[in-house]
């Protein structure tokens, strides 16, 4: 099956990407790997509600994708499928080449280590320092203790929190808390970084800082998928935009604005 190839970061081209269509643009000489692929994914919940219907989505390595759409459009369901909190009713979800629907129970944690995820509400442990919150992700996945500290220091440098390493989340601003969560999500060197409404609890200025950080992480080679309502940010950054409405992909556009511009 023909897959799309990499889209250069910062591309301002405006072509529509239709599900399943090949991408004619290929500045990268080496064909990139596909980090994430959803093929004909339908998700119905036991109450009969169909949250997703025939969704196709392909994200090559190094991409930065905004997942937009009104509440209830299916963004959360996409994320739940990606972290295998839910299984698709029909269709296939591939993450780094693995079919999430066919994973054995004990393989699920290993797949989750390939994903870094942050949420609107940060989900930090209030009684652990920044360093310990980040180290926690390694600790509970069986990392050796001597490997934890250098890895934590590295990601704290990336998010710029080296100076706050020994503070508790309660002592931090909202932006710093989100950066702590980002550091924790990065510490496993994820193949895919998912940000679920990461700026939802932050004021505009801090939101921009977080976006800048996510863009920087993307430049470091991490594939980013960000679900958001923040039209201003999406429009200003001009990245790939995948819009969901009523459980369907209604737009998949490179270098796009939050709203359809044509």
């Amino acid at each position: 099956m023909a897959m799309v190839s990499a889209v250069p970061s910062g591309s301002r081209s405006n072509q529509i990407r239709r599900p399943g269509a090949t991408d004619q643009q290929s500045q990268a000489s080496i064909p990139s790997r596909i980090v994430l692929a959803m093929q004909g994914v339908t998700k119905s919940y036991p109450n009969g509600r169909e949250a997703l219907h025939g969704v196709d989505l392909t994200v090559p390595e190094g991409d930065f994708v905004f997942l937009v759409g009104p509440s209830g459009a299916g963004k959360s369901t996409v994320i739940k499928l990606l972290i295998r909190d839910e299984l698709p009713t029909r269709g296939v979800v591939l993450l780094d080449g693995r079919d999430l629907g066919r994973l054995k129970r004990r393989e699920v944690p290993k797949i989750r280590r390939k994903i870094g995820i942050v949420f609107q509400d940060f989900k930090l442990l209030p009684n652990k320092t920044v360093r310990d919150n980040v180290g926690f992700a390694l600790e509970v996945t069986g990392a050796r203790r001597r490997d934890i500290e250098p890895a934590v220091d590295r990601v704290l440098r990336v998010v710029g929190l080296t100076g706050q390493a020994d503070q508790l989340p309660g002592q931090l601003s909202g932006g710093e808390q989100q950066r702590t969560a980002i550091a924790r999500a990065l510490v496993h060197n994820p193949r895919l970084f998912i940000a679920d409404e990461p700026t939802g609890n932050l004021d505009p200025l801090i939101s921009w800082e977080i976006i800048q950080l996510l863009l920087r992480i993307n430049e470091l080679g991490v594939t980013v998928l960000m679900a958001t309502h923040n039209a201003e940010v999406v429009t200003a950054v001009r990245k790939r935009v995948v819009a969901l409405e009523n459980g369907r992909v209604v737009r998949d556009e490179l270098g796009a604005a939050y709203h359809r511009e044509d």
Partner: protein
Amino acid sequence: MFAFVAFSLRRAWQGFWRNGLMSLAATLTMVLMLVLLSGLIILLTGLNATLDFVQQEVQVVAYLKDSANQQDISGLEISLQGMAQVTQVDFVSKDQAMKDFLARHPDEAEVINSLPTNPLPASLQINLRDPNDYLDVATYLKSQPTVDRVLNIKQTVDQMVTVIGILRAGGTAILVVVGLIVLFIIVNTIRLAVVARADEIEIMRLVGASDAFIRWPFIFEGALVGLLGAVITIGLLFVGQGPITGFLSDYFRVLPVEASATVGQNIALIVLGTGVGVGVLGSYLSVRSYLIR
């Protein structure tokens, strides 16, 4: 493997102290329930000891003919002692019977003294191993020429056997019911402690911790709650040993000293086993509901 166990133990220890209030609540519930449980066990042990004692006290009394000579009586005594159902045979002479009577009814002394002869018969008092054997021994005694008559206590014995049986069954039933209630309450308290840390479990799942890494710290923590609760309970029982023993000997009259040492040991083991077991079970069940999703 060692690293995993060390990790789990360290996390259990941290979890216990960082959620001090919930841990305290769980531990105190555990202590309360274990004290209740051991109190009940002590009570039932006392009751059982009393019942055993009462059973031993069941005596068959055979009144002897005045004509019986000493040789015949001794022969009968020996043959009775040879019976498997019999634990002890005591001979009460006519004089002894009179003395016992006067001791019980001092007011009657005048009447008794006015009698020309001693009207009270000599008797054999036979202790039984099991009151149910009463009939065997009584039948045997009735067939003996030296025996005048056998005191008919059949009805009394039957009633007592029934009552003791009911008391034993009732005690065991209460113990089982209270045990189940204790289990339920402790499991739920530990569940609360786990629910209070649902965030932590969620984060662990999100960052890709395996089920074992999520489960075992909680199980060790449950064991810790159980262990601590058991140790406190045993401490309380040890401190209360004097009053408890006093209570037992006052209300139940009997509790052999050597038995109380074993009873203490048994209760300590039961308390420890129940505490740790229920702590582990509670944690396992509580965490399981988060893992199966």
